[in-house]
């Protein structure tokens, strides 16, 4: 049983023509795009903060054209999924459980995880619970470990200040500084107004961007932090991925997940290819260099696991 999704505004159709389906996961409605051959290998394209499935709009057509089944969920709290206003529905463990539920209900097997930002740990975290069904992994500007925090995430100007207790409610919720400007201000390509709006209109409603604040607060900085244990559990199981074809794709110009993060991932996943780097791209490399990165992924999948599951 799932409720319907909020209607999309007319102006969005030209930019994001796909129908989103609704599925109920852990009591919340999750929205997802499901395009391409139903018998093709499922590729789960996972976004992070503060974006939604719109980030992968340049990935859906080439993957579908190459015979893959592109599945793009919006995390609960983001995009067109339900937006619970409670912290406890938006922990790492909860997000992971939501995705596992989607995988199970869609009976996905021999699938591929493509994750960036929070799409990395949450996607890999979910895959680790269904490891026998994971066939390949693509990681882009993300992290899967504790013990290293880069300059951006440890800096008080602005990062730790603008999501601090109470102070974060002022900047993030009252002023929506991240949900309304986060995607567009770091764009290398220069977004059109309509594209910027496509990212932030899902958070126009007051208090709807709870997840945009809980995500920064879940980045584990010290042992005991919210999210530390979830991340540590993923980190400890990374050796189990040794047999899974893995590709690292990186935008070294991103000041959030710098190339240091790629190096650390490479140490933890020595079998991974890459990092395959893309210039003229920042944190949201899928938006800056979408078609190029999509073809790189198609090439990697064709070469390693192929379109047929």
């Amino acid at each position, binding site marked *: 049983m799932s409720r319907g999704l909020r209607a999309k505004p007319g102006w969005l159709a030209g930019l994001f023509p796909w129908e989103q389906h609704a599925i109920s996961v852990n009591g919340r409605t999750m929205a997802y795009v499901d395009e391409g051959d139903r018998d093709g290998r499922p590729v789960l394209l996972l976004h992070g903060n503060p974006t939604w499935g719109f980030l992968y709009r340049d990935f859906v057509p080439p993957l579908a054209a190459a015979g893959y089944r592109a599945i793009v969920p919006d995390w609960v709290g983001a995009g067109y999924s339900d937006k619970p206003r*409670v912290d406890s529905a938006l922990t790492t463990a909860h997000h992971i459980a939501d995705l596992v539920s989607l995988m199970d209900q869609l009976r996905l097997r021999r699938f591929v995880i493509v994750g960036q930002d929070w799409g990395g740990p949450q996607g890999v975290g979910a895959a680790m619970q269904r490891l026998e069904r994971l066939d390949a992994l693509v990681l882009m500007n993300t992290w899967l470990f504790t013990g290293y925090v880069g300059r951006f995430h440890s800096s008080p100007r602005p990062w730790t200040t*603008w999501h601090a207790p109470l102070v974060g409610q002022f900047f993030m919720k009252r002023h929506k*500084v991240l949900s309304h400007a986060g995607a567009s201000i770091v764009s290398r390509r220069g977004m059109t107004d309509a594209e910027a709006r496509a990212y932030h209109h899902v958070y126009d409603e007051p208090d709807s961007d709870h997840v945009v604040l809980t995500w920064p607060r879940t980045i584990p900085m010290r042992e005991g932090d919210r999210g530390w244990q979830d991340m540590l559990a993923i980190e400890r199981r990374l050796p189990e991925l040794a047999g899974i074809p893995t590709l690292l794709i990186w935008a070294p110009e991103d000041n959030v997940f710098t190339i240091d993060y790629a190096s650390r991932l490479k140490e933890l996943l020595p079998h991974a290819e890459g990092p395959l780097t893309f210039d003229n791209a920042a944190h949201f490399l899928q938006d800056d260099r979408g078609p190029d990165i999509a073809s790189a992924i198609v090439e990697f999948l064709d070469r390693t696991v192929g379109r047929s599951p």
Partner: protein
Amino acid sequence: MKFITPSGQELSCLRADPLLVEQELDVRPEVARALENAAGMRAGRVFWRSEHDHLYALELGDLGRGLPSLANVYGFWDRYEPRPPEHEIDADLLDFSVWVAGVIEGMGEADVRLVAQFAQQQTGRVKVTWPEGSVLRTPDERFVDLPGYPYPPRYVEIEGLRMAYVEEGSGDPILMLHGEPTWGYLYRHMIPPLAAVGRVIVPDQIGFGRSDKPVADNAYSYRAFVRWMRKFIFELDLTRITLVCQDWGGLVGLRVVAQVPERFARLVAMNTGIPDGQVTRSEAGVVERSGLGGAFMQWRRLSQRQKEFDLPAMMKTAVRGRALSDAEAAAYGAPFPSVEYQTAALLWPRQVPVRPDHPGAYENHAAIQTLRGLELPVLLPWAEGDAITRAGEGVLRSIFRNCAPPLPIKGAGHFIQEDAGEEVAGHIARWIQQTPVA
């Protein structure tokens, strides 16, 4: 941030509006503990008043862990009024955020300000000033060659608004405050005689005269007018003030006296009051509120049916001691090129608190208690022919203990400064000289 304890009576006139809602403070126990220590409690509310005189509360809630888990910030607004301008709330919440940064170990107060600036530049959000287009300024050319008012305007900036005043003479300040629906021009007959005995300062209240005029209703509240005038006095650093006031000049000025009595030396109140909405009984046994009789209630009703004020016509009708020339009458319309400029003028009659739960009534009630304790010498020149404030003199006489003998002004109406300006100024000048202050 200085915590205060508002009275239950004040709180009963306000509504709480949740502004910041923090659900799980206890995931960082050291932060929860720091806030508990700073607030001096684990659960409950601490209150403070902001730079804008708005009342706020931080509410902490302990859900059973032995430390605060919930942390909410509420703004308290007048129950029957819209929210104050968002940029005022933003500035106040930013001050609060800076306070939080001072409380939480590892956070920097300067970082909060810097991040606010960064957010402002990068996203256009977190604006703490008047939004573009929200404030009107009457063009200077409308004030050229006003009959009897050659004084060059001076300006100060109060909360991002330009406030105009004229100044003549020297010595201790004589601060003259106009009311509805006039401006400093009303005092032109009184400036020369009083400039001979002191430094006359005549400001235009925000929304009037040459001062800036926010367009939106919610920019103006009784509390805001009082705050602006207090900040004006601080900006010019006026002390030993003789306050001269009429109509809303008194409603505003008397509140400022109660807030900073140490800055005032004498008080001249004319055809005004400090209504707290309490029921009084006139000598004739008629029930009134705060000395506001039927004539005021009639004016209040009439004024609120107007879409726009025709100031020249209104003033020609109201001035009775002498005939206003067309040019003089036009000077009262000069500040208002169109109705958008009249927001404050159209609001003021409605903002007079006539019931105890109206915005400002509680503050006036509290101010009266302070005023009762002052030794301030008070002169009450009162127009014999002003029906609107007729009973007000008796009310003020019952508040101030050091009043000069009654000074009824024959033939004068509500705008006593027009009807008998020179005469009243003469009385005031003599009284000032006969009433030395320490």
